[in-house]
C-alpha cells in the first residue's frame, strides 16, 4: 500500500498533495484529482483507517443539523426571526421553532427582539437555507453574562472528546458555560479570568498533545 506523502498532524495548504494512490479515500477538506488526494484548506493532516482528511485551522462556521449555536436576532418578521449565526448564511427561526405557543397576531418582539442573543439548535440545513429551533431543552434567550469568541475550527478542542475539556474547565472555574459550535461562547459567574486564560492556552496550542492535562494544570488541578 502506498504511503502518505505527509505525516499525520503535518501542516498542509490548499493544493498540497497528501497521497498518490487509489487505496486511500478522500475525507473532509480533501479532494481527489486523478490518482492523488490533495488538501483543500490550510490545516493538519489526519488519518483514520484509509480515510485521509485535513483538520482546518481557520474556518467560517458551516452549520450542521443538531449543532448548538449562539445567534443574534437581526430582524423580526410576521412569522419568525432572522438570526445572525456568524456563518455564510443567516438562519431562520420560525414561529414553530419556539417552545411557547405564539399567536400570529401577537407582538413577536416580546419573545425575541433585535439585538437579543439566543442559544439555539440548528434544525435544518439545505443549499444555503438554515433553520434554527428553540425546542431543545438547552435552548434559551441569553441574559447577563458575557460573550467570548473562539475560531470555530478550535471549538471541538474546547469541548474535547465527550466534553472532557469543557468539563475540566467547568469544574475548576465554576463558570456557567454555553458553547456555540459557531465560535461564540457565553459565560457567567465563576472565575472568568481563569476561564479566559484556559481559553487562550487552548487557542494557542490547539493541536498539542496532552493539552487537556496542560489545561488542568493551568486551572490548578492535578492531571
Amino acid at each position, binding site marked *: 500500500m502506498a504511503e502518505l506523502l505527509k505525516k499525520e498532524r503535518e501542516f498542509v495548504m490548499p493544493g498540497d498533495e497528501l497521497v498518490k494512490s487509489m487505496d486511500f479515500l478522500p475525507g473532509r477538506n480533501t479532494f481527489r484529482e486523478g490518482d492523488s488526494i490533495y488538501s483543500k484548506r490550510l490545516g493538519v493532516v489526519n488519518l483514520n483507517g484509509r480515510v485521509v482528511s485535513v483538520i482546518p485551522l481557520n474556518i467560517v462556521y458551516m452549520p450542521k443539523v443538531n449543532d448548538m449555536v449562539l445567534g*443574534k436576532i437581526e430582524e423580526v418578521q410576521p412569522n419568525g426571526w432572522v438570526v445572525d449565526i456568524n456563518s455564510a448564511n443567516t438562519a431562520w427561526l420560525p414561529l414553530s421553532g419556539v417552545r411557547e405557543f405564539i399567536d400570529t397576531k401577537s407582538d413577536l418582539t416580546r419573545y425575541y427582539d433585535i*439585538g*437579543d*442573543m439566543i442559544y439555539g439548535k440548528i434544525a435544518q440545513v439545505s443549499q444555503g437555507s438554515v433553520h434554527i429551533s428553540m425546542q431543545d431543552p438547552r435552548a434559551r434567550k*441569553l*441574559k*447577563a*453574562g*458575557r*460573550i467570548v469568541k473562539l475560531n470555530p475550527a478550535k471549538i471541538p478542542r474546547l469541548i474535547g472528546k465527550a466534553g472532557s475539556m469543557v468539563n475540566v474547565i467547568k469544574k475548576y472555574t465554576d463558570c456557567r458555560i454555553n458553547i456555540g459550535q459557531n465560535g461564540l461562547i*457565553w459565560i457567567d459567574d465563576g472565575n472568568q479570568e481563569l476561564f479566559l486564560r484556559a481559553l487562550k492556552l487552548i487557542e494557542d496550542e490547539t493541536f498539542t498533545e496532552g493539552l487537556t492535562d496542560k489545561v488542568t494544570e493551568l486551572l490548578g488541578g492535578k492531571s
Partner: protein
Amino acid sequence: MMIQNSYILNLLKEGKRLDNRKIDEYRKIKIEKNPITQAEGSARIKIGNTEVLVGVKMDVGEPFPDKPEDGVLITNAEFSPLASPNFETGPPREGSIELARVVDRGIRESGAIDTKKLCIKKKEKVWMVFVDVQILNHAGNLIDAAGLGAIVALLNAKMPEYDEKEEKVNYEKKTQPLPVKSNPVPVTQSKVDSTFLIDTNLEEEDVAEGRITITTKDDGNICSIQKSGSSAFTLDEITKAIDNSINKGKELRKLL
C-alpha cells in the same frame, strides 16, 4: 450585542475595562515614519490593533481666491472595506467625511503648515498639500490614529521640486522638508454611562453614547473641538474632557 454592552457597563461601574486598561490609558502605540516610497511623506500608526496609513502628496495649483498667497491643504479619508466587515464600498459616508474634516481642522487651525511659505507665484501658483488617510484595520479610535498619522506624515515629508520654466513638478527630487511649525494632536474621549473613556476599542465604541475630540497644540492651546454622537454633555464634563485632552496630548506629542 446587548449582553456584551451590559457587561461592559457593569465592569465600568467598578472602574474596569474589558482589556484591563485604565480609564485614561491608550493601547500600545506604534509609529512608523515614511513607509511609503511614492508619497512625499507618510506614516503608519498602530494603536492596539487599529492600523492607519497616512500619506502626504503634493502638487502645484491655483490658490483659493480669498487667500492668494497661501498654499492649499486638502484632507481626505477612506474607510476601505479592507479594514472592517462594517465598511462598505462606495462614496465616502459621514463617518469618513467627519474624520477627514476633524483631522483637517486640527492641522489648519493650529497653523501646523506654514502656508505662506508654500506660495510660488501670488494669485497664480501655490503648493497644494494632500493628506490622505487610509484605514487599514478598524479596532476603534480611528480619529486619534488618523490625527497622529497626519502630523507624523507632515513632519517627515520632503517637498518635490517645481520647475518654473517647464511648469512641472519633479517628483524625482524631494529635498526640502515641508514647513511644519506646530504639532496638533487629537485626543478623543467617549462617553460610556457617566465615564469618559480614552482610546475606545470596537466593543466599547458600540456602547458609547457619544464622544468629544479635542485637538491641542504644543503650547496647550486648543485648536479644534468636535462633539459627536447624539448624547448631551454637561459643562463640567466638557471641562474635564478638555483637561484630559491637554494632558494626554502632551503624552502623545512625546512620541512624535
